[in-house]
């Protein structure tokens, strides 16, 4: 909740903005800005989620229980945490999943990308483009608004059903486990998804077309690094980390490049990449691996892809919409190529002392799980780095950039609030994820 008129002595040169609970984002974040003599005297973007101490709670737990526990870090990204934890444990124990398991995990994940990006684009961000408070306020008598209202829920449902069929549920999926799946979908169930997936192409194209005609501009006026996991099939789950500085980094080495920065007023820590501003997420992925999008996606988009690489923060919305089309095209091809579902059973796990690292592209950017596992198969130590933590510092820097520009343009306080909220939403931050962790040493760094 916030009240833009709470200060009684407002004038254009000196005022305060205090957004206690920013709406239409995942979780709780707040922003306070102090303007004096038309300059920013203090600006604090903080994550105000209360911690649940997952990296602490997971210590002592058996590895079989870890993925489903850690999926509870976040409702909307739950299947990302689930698969990242599974990958970390499998890599630590040298378990190689079967080709069928890899296909099913990718399908589960494309379901997540479709429904999670759709939640952000339609429910959180689209009202900003129409000057409305909420998608629930869209006018059913206006053909375009009515269409988008229907599209929002139709497209989310396509991703939702794909996740339910493959994983048992779109949130905290119960079937994926270390080494495979506890329960498998039938071939018919998967084939039955094809008509809706094909219809989803038309739905998302309407949004892509709208976003390309309504490209807001806010280009970074400072140097920053884009970083993302890159694979030949743009699967979000495999590959190496590429950066806009030309680096190629193995998953297990990513941690060496990420430097935590304690933000005293925030419940979450921010990160720099080799000392520089970092941005992860859909925009980073499109900037670094657009050539690996599905051929049908590339063919449909044509020249539109030439806008990437882009340093316009708002192109993150367009990048997410493009990723939905890609996830649909990949899912259609994978399901059409499936001839059978083999009755595979997950392998028995033999614990040993090891360290495992998992890195995947969560919807909002690179997600890192690391577990130190003992000879009894219990977790001794864990570290989790989430996308919103990696983006927190660049978001605050971007907010400063916008506010400084708007102050020069003599924008009203209400205009500044609206623009800043739009900007924060374009990042699609996830505060539930960001505040999961434990960090004690406040004076570090």
């Amino acid at each position: 909740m916030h009240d833009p008129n709470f200060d009684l002595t407002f004038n254009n040169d000196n005022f305060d903005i205090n957004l206690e609970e920013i709406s239409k984002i995942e979780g709780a974040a707040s922003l306070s800005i102090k303007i004096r003599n038309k300059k920013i005297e203090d600006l604090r973007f903080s994550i105000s989620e209360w911690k649940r101490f997952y990296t602490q709670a997971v210590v002592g737990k058996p590895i079989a229980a870890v993925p489903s526990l850690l999926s509870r870090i976040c409702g909307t990204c739950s299947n990302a945490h689930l698969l990242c934890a599974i990958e970390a444990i499998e890599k630590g124990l040298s378990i190689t999943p079967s080709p069928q398991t890899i296909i099913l995990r990718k399908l589960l994940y494309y379901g997540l990308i479709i429904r999670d990006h759709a939640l952000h684009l339609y429910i959180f961000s689209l009202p900003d483009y129409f000057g409305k408070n909420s998608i629930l306020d869209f006018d059913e008598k206006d053909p375009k608004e009515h269409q988008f209202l229907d599209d929002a829920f139709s497209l989310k449902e396509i991703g939702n059903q794909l996740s339910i069929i493959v994983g048992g549920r779109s949130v905290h999926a119960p079937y994926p486990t270390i080494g495979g799946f506890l329960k498998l979908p039938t071939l018919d169930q998967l084939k039955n998804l094809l008509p809706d997936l094909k219809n989803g192409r038309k739905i998302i194209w309407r949004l892509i077309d709208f976003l390309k005609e309504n490209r807001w501009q806010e280009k970074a006026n400072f140097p920053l690094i884009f970083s993302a996991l890159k694979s030949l099939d743009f699967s979000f789950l495999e590959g190496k980390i590429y950066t806009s500085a030309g680096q190629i980094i193995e998953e297990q080495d990513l941690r060496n490049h990420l430097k935590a920065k304690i933000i005293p007023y925030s419940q979450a820590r921010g990160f720099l990449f080799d000392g520089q501003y970092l941005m992860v997420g859909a925009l980073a992925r499109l900037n670094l691996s657009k050539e690996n999008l599905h051929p049908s996606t590339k063919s449909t988009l044509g020249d539109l892809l030439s806008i990437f690489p882009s340093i316009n923060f708002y192109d993150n919305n367009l990048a997410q919409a493009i990723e939905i089309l890609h996830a649909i095209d990949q899912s259609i091809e994978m399901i059409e190529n499936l001839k059978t579902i083999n009755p595979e059973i997950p392998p028995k796990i033999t614990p040993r002392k090891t360290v495992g690292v998992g890195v995947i592209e969560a919807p909002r950017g690179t997600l890192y799980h690391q577990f130190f596992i003992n000879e009894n198969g219990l977790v001794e130590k864990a570290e989790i780095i989430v996308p919103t933590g990696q983006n927190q510092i660049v978001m605050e820097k971007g907010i400063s950039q916008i506010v400084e520009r708007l102050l020069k343009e003599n924008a009203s306080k209400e205009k500044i609030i609206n623009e800043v909220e739009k900007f924060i939403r374009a990042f699609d931050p996830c505060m539930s994820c960001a505040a999961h962790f434990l960090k004690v040493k406040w004076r570090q760094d």
Partner: protein
Amino acid sequence: MDNKIKVGWFSFTCCEDSTIIFTELLNQNYKLWLSKINFVHARIFKRDDSQEIKPMDIAFVEGAITSDRQEEKLKKIRRQTKILVAIGSCAVLGAPANQRNFFNQRQLGEIKPILEKFRYKEKVLKVADIVKVDEIVPGCPMDEKKFMEIINKYINFNQV
């Protein structure tokens, strides 16, 4: 608008999985629900400039309570709603958001600086520890069938 049931949706400390399930249930039910429900508070859907909690017919409350400020807000919600529904495991049982309640001395020692710095409550509480709860929807995430039962029970609340 006047005949619509006034609903609030509130999230406290949790992963907001039930909010996500709710938005997925909207996929197939939004036409009916939007014709019957006025969301007076729902941060997931709309900006909320109001300083105070508005009167509601039903308040759905997700998440556990881990700070005094949250406790105060929950009490305000209770005062302003006819029916309060605790949604999901963290609201109904406190878990897993309350896992620090069961930490050993070593673990508690490690998190102590954070608890003190941000003034956490000593223990994480479930919703019913603080206010009267009329209905519960257990589950992690919430049980969709039970939730649908409650929605169907109250959706014509104002016509009853």
